[in-house]
């Protein structure tokens, strides 16, 4: 997200600014907090900007005039006026509206007048200014005029605001705000956008104890602020004390006329309008007649006190101690290196031209305007990739599917199947120039019909994404015993069903995906540094995409700024960076923008599920039948195509359900590919089971907790094989449920449930969860240096989990040496032979056990060395508190570091066997590879098509 090029002028005076504005296509730059984002999004590209920030006359905050008013200059920021306090004393309604703007940082730069002029939908300041009858002063080359603020918004359909700025050289210089004591501004904030879903400014003027004048102005409900004359009229002649805090019925506008947007429907926004108008009137009334009415604020429930049971910990063990993380200091100082922080000499920058359509044939790609631009080094399309030695199709691992799933081409092969799919790659000297180049590439599309919804994609008339997959079905799979489940339903006393939509999610690590690729021609070898959850996974996949052996790809992941699944997958960016690095023989960096991260995926979930539960009338569960249609997006990505088909393995959760059958169809749609996101299949399954149990509880009239409790797998049933073929080794669920209920004061909350006086509903719900994790092998290496200090390596990679601390704790306990003597290294494909990575809550189980096992191997080998020195049998050597000793040689003890030195041939007096190369003894990489039992990954299943 970079602004386009423009000229920049910074005048010293208002006159100079007006003169500069007279040029064509010039915009005023004040705070720039609306203009710069608009320019980055290419919603505005003025040729020049006139920065008014240096004009001292525009920084004035003045109360010296003859009128009782506050004058605020056009360069005054929200933070300036809030700190000044003039409005807090003289126009609290306006002060409150300014305090509601954005956030601290935005208020540092955003200007009051700029906000008034920009008037985004849901902006706060315009509504309060209209209610206050504020006046705006505008100057141009011909003179000065003053307009009431409400005239700025006379044409609500005009998206080019403000309507009153008519001349090219008009400069709004200041706003004059009359003193308004009897007013208030309240808003309901959208938690993500920060804008008001609804904001209400109410101003009341009393005369002789009754209201003589009222202004009620709403923001958010229409494109621009809107007065509510019906409400205003009803307030006239009323005593403020007669205006309680209650919902105010508003007939104009009607709910249907209120603006709907993707965040909120019109009727809901109207309901907010009525509620907030009542509250704002109450506060304003209180200010004109203090003490009569109080704004009813919902008494907040006291936060539950944290009296969770402290687990007794073993004071002699480092694991479990609440240590400060050793990783944190670098992060806190901003010194830890993330991939985007890397610099390489002669580095060029890569960006993509992405599809503007969800589904289209590409008729032509014309790069000529890009190729000729300054700084642009190359523009690549699929034809360039196809002519190279590399396949350039991201590999698929289908996990047992019996057919070929089309892989994702790094650049589109004459067809795009989702909005945002990479079509061309542009490499330039810097990222700004790369973006300029990408914008100059012209793509001609022939648009085809898109299909976004997986159920619709199964319809007879749905467009097919691939000619050889006319039904759009990638894979079907079934888990469980269909006949047993059918029987359970045939004999069921009660059957309930539910249709669920588990919506699509976008993984949003704060660090976008990023890669830096270097190619060494002398060794035909790539080094790719990238934000990765799995360096070995990326090594394998990059090697396939590039068509080179894995030994030719070295993958390094520096610090990773969050993963949530999507940094475990292979995407076009890192492949294109590596390919271009070889092509241009230069380091290539690629950094996704936030919106590229959103558009390209991989996204998570997106299931449509129909579930039925068969029960006895006493609530005993007999069978669960589930049919799921899973959206796979436009391409298979890694193991994504098979993932959805395996999710049924957790449907039994912690319940003894004798028969379960789950059938799944994974379906292509013209959307970004779907892959694992936070939990990857487990939350999807738990959601189904828990929701259908709630439906059953309602139908049977059984308390939902009691129904769950009655069906828990009893503690004496373990090991327990579920009806979907997964064996649980142990469990005792009832006490866990009891503790959860106690922790949330379930009984008390349940009694508070129901409808409240203000019409809002309150309820309490509980969901149980069984986790399946720890799959796949993992590598842990413990290397002891000659001085006894220890380096631990693992195939996992922390992206916030703190393995550097955790693994050191585990190894400290095994080796009984100081925690400080242990260093942990991850994220380099050459430090350990292989690894699986960090995802699905697996690292401490897999990597943790692997490093512990390696530490045990180290100890075993060290014991042999100590035995040689002590002249005893290895079985007689004891180890404790960092020392080796033998009862038969009471006066001799060997420290851990002495033995480490001996392993390298140091300090030896011929007692160690010459054949023991020290390094080999203690370097236990192979010994530390920890293989996990994969039998439970998905249960007994079959795949067919």
């Amino acid at each position, binding site marked *: *997200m*970079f*602004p*386009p*090029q*423009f*000229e*920049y002028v*910074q005048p010293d005076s208002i006159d100079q600014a007006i003169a500069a504005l007279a040029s064509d296509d010039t915009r005023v*730059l004040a705070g*720039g*907090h609306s203009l*710069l*984002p608009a320019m*980055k*999004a290419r919603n505005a590209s003025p040729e020049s*900007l006139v*920065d008014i*920030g240096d004009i001292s006359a525009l920084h004035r905050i003045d109360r010296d005039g003859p009128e009782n008013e506050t004058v605020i200059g056009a360069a005054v920021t929200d933070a300036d006026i809030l700190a000044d306090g003039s409005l807090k004393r003289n126009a609290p309604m306006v002060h409150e509206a300014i305090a509601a703007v*954005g*956030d*601290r*940082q*935005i208020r*540092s*730069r955003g200007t009051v007048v700029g906000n008034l002029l920009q008037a985004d939908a849901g902006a706060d300041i315009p509504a309060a200014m209209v209610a206050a009858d504020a006046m705006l002063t505008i100057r141009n080359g011909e003179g000065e005029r003053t307009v009431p603020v409400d005239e700025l918004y006379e044409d609500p359909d005009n998206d080019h605001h403000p309507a009153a700025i008519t001349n090219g050289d008009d400069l709004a210089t200041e706003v004059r705000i009359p003193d308004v004591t009897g007013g208030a501004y309240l808003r309901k904030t959208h938690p993500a956008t*920060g804008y008001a879903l609804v904001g209400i400014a109410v101003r009341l003027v009393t005369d002789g104890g009754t209201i003589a004048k009222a202004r009620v102005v709403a923001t958010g409900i229409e494109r621009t602020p809107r007065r509510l004359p019906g409400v205003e009229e009803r307030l006239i002649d009323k005593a403020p004390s007669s205006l309680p805090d209650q919902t105010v019925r508003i007939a104009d506008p009607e709910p249907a006329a209120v603006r709907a947007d993707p965040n909120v429907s019109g009727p809901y926004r109207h309901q907010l309008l009525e509620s907030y108008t009542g509250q704002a009137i109450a506060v304003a009334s209180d200010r004109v007649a203090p003490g009569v009415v109080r704004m009813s604020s919902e008494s907040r429930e006291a936060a539950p006190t944290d009296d969770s049971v402290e687990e007794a910990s073993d004071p002699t063990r480092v694991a479990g101690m609440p240590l*400060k*993380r050793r*990783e*944190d*200091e*670098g*992060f*806190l*100082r*901003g*010194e*830890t*290196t*993330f991939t*985007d*922080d890397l*610099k390489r000499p002669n580095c060029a920058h890569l960006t993509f031209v992405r599809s503007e359509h969800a589904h289209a044939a590409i008729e032509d790609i014309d790069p000529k305007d890009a190729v000729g631009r300054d700084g642009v080094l190359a523009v690549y399309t699929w034809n360039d990739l196809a002519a190279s030695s590399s396949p350039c199709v991201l590999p698929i691992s289908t996990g047992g599917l019996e057919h070929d799933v089309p892989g994702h081409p790094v650049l589109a092969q004459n067809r795009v199947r989702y909005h945002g799919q990479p079509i061309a790659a542009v490499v330039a000297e810097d990222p*700004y120039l790369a973006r300029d180049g990408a914008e100059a590439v012209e793509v001609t599309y022939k648009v085809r019909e898109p299909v976004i919804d997986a159920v619709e994609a199964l319809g007879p008339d749905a467009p097919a994404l691939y000619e050889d997959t006319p039904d759009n079905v990638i894979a079907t799979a079934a888990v469980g015993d269909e006949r047993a489940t059918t029987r359970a339903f045939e004999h069921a006393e009660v059957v309930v069903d539910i249709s669920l939509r588990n919506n699509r999610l976008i993984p*949003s*690590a*704060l*660090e976008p995906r990023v890669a830096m690729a270097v190619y060494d021609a002398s060794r035909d070898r790539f080094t790719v540094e990238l934000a990765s959850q799995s360096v070995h996974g990326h090594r394998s996949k990059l090697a396939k995409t590039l068509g080179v052996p894995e030994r030719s790809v070295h993958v390094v992941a520096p*610090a*990773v*700024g*969050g993963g*949530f699944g999507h940094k475990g997958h292979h995407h076009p960016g890192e492949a294109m960076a590596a390919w271009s690095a070889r092509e241009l023989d230069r380091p290539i960096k690629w950094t996704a*923008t*936030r919106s590229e991260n959103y558009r390209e995926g991989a996204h998570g979930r997106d299931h449509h599920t129909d579930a039925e539960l068969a029960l006895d009338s006493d609530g005993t569960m007999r069978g669960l039948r589930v049919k799921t249609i899973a959206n796979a997006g436009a391409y298979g990505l890694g193991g994504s195509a098979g993932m959805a088909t395996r999710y049924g393995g957790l449907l039994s959760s912690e319940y003894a359900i004798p028969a379960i059958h789950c059938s799944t169809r994974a379906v292509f749609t013209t959307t970004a590919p779907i892959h694992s996101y936070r939990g990857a299949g487990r939350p999807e399954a738990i959601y189904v089971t828990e929701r259908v149990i709630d439906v059953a509880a309602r139908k049977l009239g059984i308390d939902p907790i009691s129904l769950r409790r009655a069906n828990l797998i009893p503690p004496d049933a373990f090991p327990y094989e579920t009806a979907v073929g997964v064996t649980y080794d142990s469990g005792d669920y009832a006490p866990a449920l009891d503790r959860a209920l106690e922790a949330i004061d379930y009984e008390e909350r349940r009694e508070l449930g129901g409808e409240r006086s203000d019409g809002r509903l309150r309820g309490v719900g509980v969901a149980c969860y069984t986790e399946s994790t720890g799959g796949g092998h993992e590598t842990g290496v413990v290397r002891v240096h000659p001085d006894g200090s220890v380096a631990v390596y693992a195939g996992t990679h922390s*992206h*916030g*989990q*703190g393995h550097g601390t955790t693994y050191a704790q585990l190894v400290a306990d095994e080796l009984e040496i100081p925690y400080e003597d242990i260093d942990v290294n991850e994220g380099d494909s050459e430090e350990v032979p292989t690894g699986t990575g960090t995802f699905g809550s697996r690292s401490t189980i897999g990597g943790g056990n692997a490093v512990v096992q390696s530490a045990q191997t180290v100890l075993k080998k060290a014991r042999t060395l100590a035995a040689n020195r002590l002249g005893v049998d290895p079985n007689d050597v004891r180890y404790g508190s960092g020392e080796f000793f033998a009862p038969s040689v009471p006066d001799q003890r060997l420290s851990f570091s002495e033995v480490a030195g001996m392993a390298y041939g140091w300090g030896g007096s011929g007692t160690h066997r010459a054949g023991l190369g020290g390094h080999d003894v203690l370097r236990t990489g192979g010994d530390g590879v920890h293989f996990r039992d994969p039998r439970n990954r998905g249960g007994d299943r079959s795949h067919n098509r």
Partner: protein
Amino acid sequence: MSTHEITLTVDGSERTATVEPRTLLVHVLREHLDNTAPKVGCESGKCGACTVQLDGEPVKSCLVLGVQADGTSILTAAGLADGDLHPIQEAFREEHGLQCGYCTPGLVMSTLDLLEKHQELSREEIRAELKGNICRCTGYQNVVEAVETAAKTLDTERSD
């Protein structure tokens, strides 16, 4: 397009850079001046990972042009403490107010401004005042704990 030579004081050192008008302050710092403490999370003013202080005020450096910052003084998380961690940084560490660490330099800088201007804050106020900084890992609970702890430390230091 024209270029401009700008001079900034960054973490106490005077620095110059030649930039286009469109070059964002965050890129001036990261690319031209090698100060990668401010991070780029969204480039659209939403996430706050690029927060720095500009003449004592917290700003999202992806929404400020380098040319607008000419002549100003910038403080980043890298310049907050020379030796020991700043009490705010120490409090984040103590309370485990960070996980992946990507949002952390920005959060620390917003907290600095918050605690410079306010001495007593409720937990709700802390959450509201830090809403310009997004953290995807912590769920904010420990961030709030860290700010409360830092406020207490700074209060004690002030009264000492």
